[in-house]
């Protein structure tokens, strides 16, 4: 394979429209759409006694007000997206609640009006009589089960799963040293800068539904709408246009609006749009995190782990539409890059009266990493070795791949690490970090991670050379800033021997590519990237075959380079790709673009029918890539930080990332993913906290009080790439979307513990939390 574009810092093809203000986000689409608003529950748990929409319906300018009873699908539970045999008590909400609400923000009614202002006025006229019920808001309260979120779910337990490698109990009992540790990680919120939005139009004439949706999975939305409305999939088009950040919550489906907006558009015969505002986003969009781990670890006098038993509860929220993927990921990733010969993990997925949880960048991995890394720091302190040394002694070695962890993975397979060099990550990070800076209250943070990326089932791509010689490519997965239009162009350009600027990529538009799954789980480069590679290679082979007839050469002697198919060693003998595209489609009627060369009275290159048996017209191909298992990325983060002992202000003096995402398509894009991930991790570790009160009210549902970091909070990040190619895909790539965020909580916790000498076992932290911990540590004589 030519490596002309792969690996280069190619500037982004998508930038120009964003920089000129010509990006097209869902709310930018108008076309005379009616506007809509959802009426949401102000209570975290309540019985609905009555809903009166008469005043709202009577308001001039209101087109429709829907409650559950007005919908043909109003009595249907929304789907469990990822069923699992251990999800014995899976529950999902209905599009609109009619009897009971189980979280603040659950949708109750839907108003469509001439404009947004009228819709909001009408929403205020919807009268819902609620009878408040007791609220279960923390995972610990759910475990106590004094109140139930669902009357028919005993103990608030949606699922329980136990997995074991070796004999953890026996190994623990015979271990020379043991510790019991408790770790608590609170909920988090992704907060992409663009909140969610949906726009829909029904064409009665064509019997066709067109939906623009700020989703991470337009193909799944299309499938669901086709089933719901009884339409052939060919009559449903779903487009994720420019999407202003995803980070996970936009992979959730179906949010009520994703069904209601298309339904209303079909009912009313007018385009309908819905755009979430920021406060609504805080109370209506899935969140993540929220786990409490009880860990028993056994180890020897050298600090080598012998047994690890982790029993954790997971805050699933009020419903389980996403199944138990998050705790499965956590359970699979607790051992991280370390050898844990005996490992037992049990989790229980608990119902609480809060927004359902589904993946947010990291998706259960930051919790797993925090648990293991903090455990190793505790072991290091106990046996009296430094924190780097305890890691060194426990790391899986480069000659031990493939390495089987012994528990199950989120794709239904077992966790098997395919490749990596963990010791090199650690040593490189320590070297880059350098010596401890002078001064008081300085601490070192250290954290290592692995990440199973590129999960299946599959993605596909279509690549076509136009008669102009220009190349167009499309895949089903949408883009939320990951530079798909650039990196896929690099992959395709290499196979077709064209300039990278000559490849135009469309992603996330079912009109251009209807199959596939979505953008999540650091899987785009692995799945869609390799599908692009496969499809482009098929096009290249086809081009050689067609050109071979005309050049009277053996296809094996041909190469694609310089925008042409030519004979190796004699580049003057060749034909432009556009001319090959013309010949690929024998025509009766020349329609310009040089197509007269493919008409009936031109000299034939070969005897027989214009299209031989098995041949298809067009210089195009559709290719798929379906991985056998995850490609395991890895990394090590290290930091020097300082904490002010009076104000507990955090200052990150140096932050180093050494990571391995296999072969890198575009280092500039990868560095952007890492830098953004670390910043999000720092926000989640020290600034952002969802402040729920005991009534289940989110008390800080705005950017005024939910403190996302500005530039002033984020340090410079130093990055080094290490490449161990994945053997599981042709490009040798691993995903990198979530890498930056995973170990940040562990690094910040470790660094603060080192700086202040107070034990850190929870996330997130804040100046106030550190003050409380310091105060209680100094008044208490006992340690953990």
């Amino acid at each position, binding site marked *: 394979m030519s490596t002309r574009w792969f690996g*280069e*810092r*190619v*500037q*982004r*093809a*998508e*930038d*120009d*429209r*964003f*920089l*000129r*203000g*010509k*990006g*097209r*986000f869902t*709310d*930018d689409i*108008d076309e005379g759409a009616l506007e809509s608003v959802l009426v949401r529950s102000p209570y975290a748990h309540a019985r609905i006694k009555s809903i009166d929409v008469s005043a709202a319906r009577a308001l001039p300018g209101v087109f429709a007000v829907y409650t559950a009873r007005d919908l043909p699908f109003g009595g249907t539970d929304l789907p469990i997206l990822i069923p699992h045999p251990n999800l014995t008590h899976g529950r999902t909400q209905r599009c609109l609640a009619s009897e009971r609400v189980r979280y603040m923000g659950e949708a109750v009614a839907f108003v469509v009006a001439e404009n947004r*202002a009228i819709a909001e006025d009408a929403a205020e006229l919807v009268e819902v009589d609620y009878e408040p019920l007791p609220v279960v808001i923390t995972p610990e309260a759910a475990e106590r089960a004094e109140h139930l979120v669902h009357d028919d779910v005993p103990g608030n337990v949606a699922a329980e799963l136990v997995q074991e490698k070796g004999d953890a109990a026996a190994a623990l009992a015979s271990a020379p040293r043991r510790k019991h540790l408790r770790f608590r990680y609170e909920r988090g919120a*992704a*907060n*992409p*800068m*663009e*909140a969610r939005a949906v726009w829909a139009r029904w064409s009665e004439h064509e019997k066709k539904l067109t939906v623009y949706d700020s989703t991470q999975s337009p193909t799944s939305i299309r499938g669901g709408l086709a089933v719901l409305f009884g339409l052939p999939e060919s009559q449903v088009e779903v487009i994720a246009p*420019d*999407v*202003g*950040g995803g*980070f996970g919550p936009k992979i959730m489906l179906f949010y009520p609006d994703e069904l209601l907006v298309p339904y209303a558009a079909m009912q009313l015969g007018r385009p309908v749009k819905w755009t979430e505002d*920021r406060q609504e986003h805080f109370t209506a969009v899935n969140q993540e995190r929220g786990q409490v781990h009880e860990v028993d670890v056994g180890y020897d006098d050298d600090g080598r782990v012998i047994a690890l038993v982790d029993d954790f509860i997971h805050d699933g929220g009020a419903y389980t539409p996403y199944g138990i993927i998050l705790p499965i990921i956590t359970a699979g990733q607790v051992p991280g890059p370390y050898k844990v010969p005996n490992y037992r993990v049990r989790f229980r997925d608990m119902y609480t009266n809060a927004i359902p949880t589904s993946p947010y960048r990291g998706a259960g991995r930051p919790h797993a990493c925090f648990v293991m890394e903090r455990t190793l720091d505790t072991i290091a302190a106990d046996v009296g070795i430094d924190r780097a040394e305890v890691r060194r002694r426990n790391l899986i070695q480069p000659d031990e791949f493939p390495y089987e962890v012994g528990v199950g993975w989120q794709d239904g397979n077992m966790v098997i690490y395919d490749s990596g060099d963990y010791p090199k990550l650690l040593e490189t990070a320590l070297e880059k970090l350098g010596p401890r800076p002078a001064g008081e209250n300085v601490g070192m943070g250290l954290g290592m991670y692995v990440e199973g990326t590129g999960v299946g089932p599959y993605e596909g791509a279509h690549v076509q050379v136009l008669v102009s010689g220009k190349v167009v490519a499309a895949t089903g997965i949408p883009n*939320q*800033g*990951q*530079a798909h239009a650039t990196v896929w162009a690099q992959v395709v350009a290499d196979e077709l021997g064209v300039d*990278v600027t000559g490849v135009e990529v469309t992603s996330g538009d079912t009109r251009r590519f209807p199959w596939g799954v979505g953008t999540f789980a650091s899987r785009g480069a692995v799945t869609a990237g390799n599908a692009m590679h496969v499809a482009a290679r098929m096009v290249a082979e086809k081009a050689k075959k067609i050109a071979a007839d005309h050049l009277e050469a053996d296809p094996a002697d041909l190469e694609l380079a310089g925008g042409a198919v030519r004979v190796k060693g004699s580049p003057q003998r060749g034909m432009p790709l556009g001319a090959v595209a013309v010949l690929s489609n024998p025509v009766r009627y020349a329609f310009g673009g040089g197509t007269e060369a493919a008409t009936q009275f031109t000299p034939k290159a070969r005897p027989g029918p214009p299209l031989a048996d098995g041949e298809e017209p067009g210089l195009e191909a559709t290719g798929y890539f379906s991985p056998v298992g995850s490609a395991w990325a890895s990394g090590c983060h290290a930091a020097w930080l300082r904490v002010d002992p009076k104000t507990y202000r955090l200052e990150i003096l140096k932050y180093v990332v050494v990571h391995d995402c296999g072969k890198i398509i*575009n*280092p*500039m894009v990868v*560095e*952007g993913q890492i*830098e*953004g*991930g670390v*910043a*999000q991790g720092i926000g989640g570790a020290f600034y952002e906290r969802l402040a729920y009160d005991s009534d289940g009210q989110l008390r800080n549902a*705005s*950017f*005024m009080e939910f403190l*996302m970091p*500005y*530039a*002033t909070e*984020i340090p*410079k*990040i130093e990055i080094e790439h290490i490449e161990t190619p994945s053997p599981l895909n042709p490009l040798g790539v691993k995903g990198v979307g979530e890498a*930056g965020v995973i170990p940040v909580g562990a690094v910040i916790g470790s660094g603060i513990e080192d700086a202040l000498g107070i034990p850190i076992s929870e996330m997130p932290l804040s100046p106030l939390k550190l003050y409380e911990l310091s105060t209680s540590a100094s008044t208490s004589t006992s340690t953990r």
Partner: protein
Amino acid sequence: MKVNGFAHPAPSDPRRLLSDHLRHDLGLTGTHVGCEHGVCGCCTILLDGAPVRSCLMLAVQAEGHEVTTIEGLAPEGAPLHAVQQAFHECHGLQCGFCTPGFVMSVVGLLEQHPQPTDEQIDEGIAGNLCRCTGYASIRRAVKRAAVLSAPLTPDSSTPLTPDPSPLRGEGANPPT
């Protein structure tokens, strides 16, 4: 009200926010709305040359003033403005949603500090939230924009003209 150099009639609805007026009445959808309470900075525009948040103003308050939006920085078909070009070269944007607000803030920042220090850069962009980049590439873009906007000097060692080559992403080695 003048928007990007063109006079526009007064907004008909006195309750209309300037951000909504620009987006939905004038079709200038490059100005984005990320929080509608003045924190995220996505809706930043220039009012008489100074950056302001258009979600915190009523459209009628802009009467008699000059408004510049992201669409007004570089006319269609013309090369990018220096700040836009710098964001491109330095990978200063990912999803592109916060980008117009950042670009307008940086135009205002460089007006005030043509050669900003690191502290001035952080301060100058500390009214804008970005959830994708972690700000590192935006800081680099501000520095690059300062270079691209600087008047030509004989001893300047940095190229002052934008490089159109797609291979000149941030940190790239010069072509050999």
